């Protein structure tokens, strides 16, 4: 009932929050970032098996050449973002902390850096399996942050009927504007990416969903769409987390993805516009993913903007370029609601990084979080949770370490850690943090049991 009203009147889903947008960079065109002295390509920057290196130390590579191959179906290859020489295959720090194996490429100072690799292909003649392999060869993963290999998502189980492709241009996280700029400047590529996905899935229609703070992008796309196109664009309420897969599906189609299930079960697939733009760009040329747009913004940057960044660029160099000289404690990788802190500035930009937010003040790492007050049962978290869970109750159970009950009675595993509940809690209870711990412990017990 409430869902119907929200959809009809506001183009939205029930619940959610309205954090300040802070989209300072939404008028700044995408700018290319110069190459760093050394690029670091982690072999595991997607969900699934790590890629396997196919180069050796000292080997010369050209820009766009594959340097690691997929090690299975749920895995993607890596391509060299630069013409240069392989400086080594080493363990390097990652955003999450533990070190991981990475290929290090050193650019040739004099090289022209044209993408030489790849050959145009007419993919309209490929059959489904060939297409999926071709997509895998591009190395594209979900660029919205999920980093799930695109071709796996496209290979829906036999028998599933997809009627609608959804292009996710919501970019509901505060600060981030990379997708916004892409939709303005690369609408054509996004549209051809959508067409490819429609062909693969057999869907008859596609909807591009944007939050209504991106009116200019909406018009840019509208202009590119012919009359009577099966692709349409819709402006939606600016509300977090409008861009989460489940919420967007509900807003646009009124369908609910079953708990623990996948969107294809209700006949839709959702892809981020950045992913689709890369698909539309790379597939016709048969190239690999070597760069992406990253929004660098926040009170601590002198030259905020949307930078087309070679994958593997160390954050340190990126930040040097935009004018910042602080430590890792100033940074958030991704958006402020779901992004992560980094442990070191030597972490590279990977396929899933859409933004870097630089805070003005250094965060105190070891400072004890502000003591939470007890839950006053104000109900704000219930009214914020887009999945209609009961974060208050979950929080109380977590404090009592009743992790099992959290899942059995209150659907802990459905929580996708969007952070709405923590955002609105007057008692500053670290609800999402509790839920992460609880999930991890439940998982562990499942393994040991």
């Amino acid at each position, binding site marked *: 009932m409430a869902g119907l009203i929200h959809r009809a009147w506001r183009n939205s889903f029930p619940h959610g929050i309205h954090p*300040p947008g802070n989209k300072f960079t939404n008028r700044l065109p995408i700018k290319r970032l110069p190459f760093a002295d050394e690029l670091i390509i982690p072999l595991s920057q997607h969900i699934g098996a790590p890629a396997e290196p196919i180069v050796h130390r000292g080997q010369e590579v050209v820009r766009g050449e594959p340097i690691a191959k997929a090690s299975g179906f749920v895995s993607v290859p890596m391509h060299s973002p630069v013409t240069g020489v392989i400086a080594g295959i080493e363990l390097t720090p990652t955003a999450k902390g533990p070190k991981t194996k990475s290929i290090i490429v050193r650019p040739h100072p004099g090289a022209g850096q044209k993408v030489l690799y790849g050959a145009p292909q007419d993919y309209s003649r490929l059959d489904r399996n060939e297409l999926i392999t071709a997509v895998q060869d591009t190395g594209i993963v979900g660029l919205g942050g999920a980093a799930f290999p695109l071709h796996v998502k496209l290979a829906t189980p036999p028998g599933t009927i997809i009627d609608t492709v959804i292009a996710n241009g919501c970019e509901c996280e505060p600060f981030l504007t990379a997708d916004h700029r892409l939709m303005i400047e690369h609408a054509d590529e996004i549209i051809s990416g959508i067409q490819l996905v429609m062909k693969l899935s057999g869907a008859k229609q596609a909807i591009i969903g944007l939050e209504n703070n991106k009116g200019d992008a909406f018009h840019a796309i509208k202009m590119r769409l012919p009359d009577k196109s099966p692709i349409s664009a819709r402006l939606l309420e600016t509300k977090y987390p409008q861009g989460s897969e489940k919420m967007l599906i509900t807003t646009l189609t009124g369908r609910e993805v079953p708990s623990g299930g996948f969107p294809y079960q209700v006949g839709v697939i959702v892809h981020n516009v950045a992913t689709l733009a890369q698909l539309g760009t790379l597939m016709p040329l048969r190239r690999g993913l070597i760069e992406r747009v990253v929004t660098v913004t926040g009170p601590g940057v002198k030259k905020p903007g949307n930078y087309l960044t070679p994958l593997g660029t160390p954050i340190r160099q990126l930040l040097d370029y935009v004018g910042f000289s602080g430590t890792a404690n100033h940074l958030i990788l991704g958006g402020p609601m779901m992004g992560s802190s980094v442990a070191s500035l030597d972490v590279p930009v990977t396929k899933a990084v859409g933004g870097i937010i630089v805070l003005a*003040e250094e965060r105190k790492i070891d400072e004890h979080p502000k003591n939470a007050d007890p839950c006053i049962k104000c109900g704000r978290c219930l009214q914020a949770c887009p999945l209609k869970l009961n974060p208050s109750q979950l929080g109380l159970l977590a404090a009592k370490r009743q992790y099992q009950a959290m899942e059995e009675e209150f659907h802990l595993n459905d929580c996708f850690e969007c952070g709405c509940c923590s955002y609105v809690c007057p008692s500053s209870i670290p609800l999402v943090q509790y839920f992460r711990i609880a999930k991890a412990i439940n998982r562990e017990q499942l393994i040991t049991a």
Partner: protein
Amino acid sequence: MKKRLNARVEIRTSPHIHYAPSVSQIMRNVVYALVPISLFGIYQFGLSALALIVVTTASCLATEHLFMRVSDRASSLHDFSAVITGLLLALTLPPGFPLWMAAVAGFIAIALGKVIFGGLGYNILNPALVGRAFVQAAFPVAITTWTPAFIPGRFSEFVPSTLTLPFLKPISPAEWINANAIDGFTGATPLALQKFEQIQTSTIDLLMGMTSGSAGESSALLIMACGLYLAFRKMLDWRIPVGILLSSALFSALFYLINPDLYPPPLFTLLSGGMMLGAIFMATDMVASPLTPLGVWSYAILIGVLTVTIRFFGGLPEGIMYAILLGNAASPLIASLTQPRAYGKERRSLFNRRQKEES
């Protein structure tokens, strides 16, 4: 309400921003909303009401402080919740209530209403009502001795019963009232008049607070205005008062239609006694009310129906206090029966919950 971005990151995992009024900000706003009502009570009833408000609030604060010291916990006075309890308690008492009894009420409210459950956030019942229910049982005469509003000398002298010494029989204010006030005043509240003598008080008088009654339950208009302030700041759940008022109006209309001579019209039910104060400020105690959407409505309707039932069929003229206490006591059960249907889940009916999980 202007939003401010709180970029001070306290925990290194997401979300990295947080925007919410703190608990003490919410509580402070509730206090702000209660101030005009208290001031109006003082304007109506004079010095005695002022003394009453000061004593209950001080008693609540002192009790809270004492227990926090004893249990070695950080002082919780800054969260203002004890002030709310004190104010609410005073507003439900007759203006001439002996001060020592008021102090006892404040102590009981905090000690038995809140501290034994573990403090703010853990109490099951509204603490102010616990205090009030206690003195209702302990001092049945004093709690039903009313003084008229707007007595000429109210700002220069206390109602004599106010200053009763501990453990002495309160001085009846009747003589003092007769000396001071309009002839023929019985000391009865509109509710008692209606219930026991079938005398109707005019709606205008009820709205404006021109009647006798407890220190803060008189001007329905003012209470509504203060409640609206909180509701607009999203610090009060509007569904609870709306649910209570609607359900009690409908329920009492039923009786009024059957026998208009015996039962009061619904509007009178809404405006008289502690209905407004109770529905807007007491039933909405966040901690003691359910927080599931369906639960909130069930809770409100339960209180509305119970209030009317007690008023019409119980021995007391006023029912809202016990109705809310019952509602509070029932709210954990209500909450557990009305868990919302989570996104992407089948609706769980009340009875097949267990089987489903086992299968």
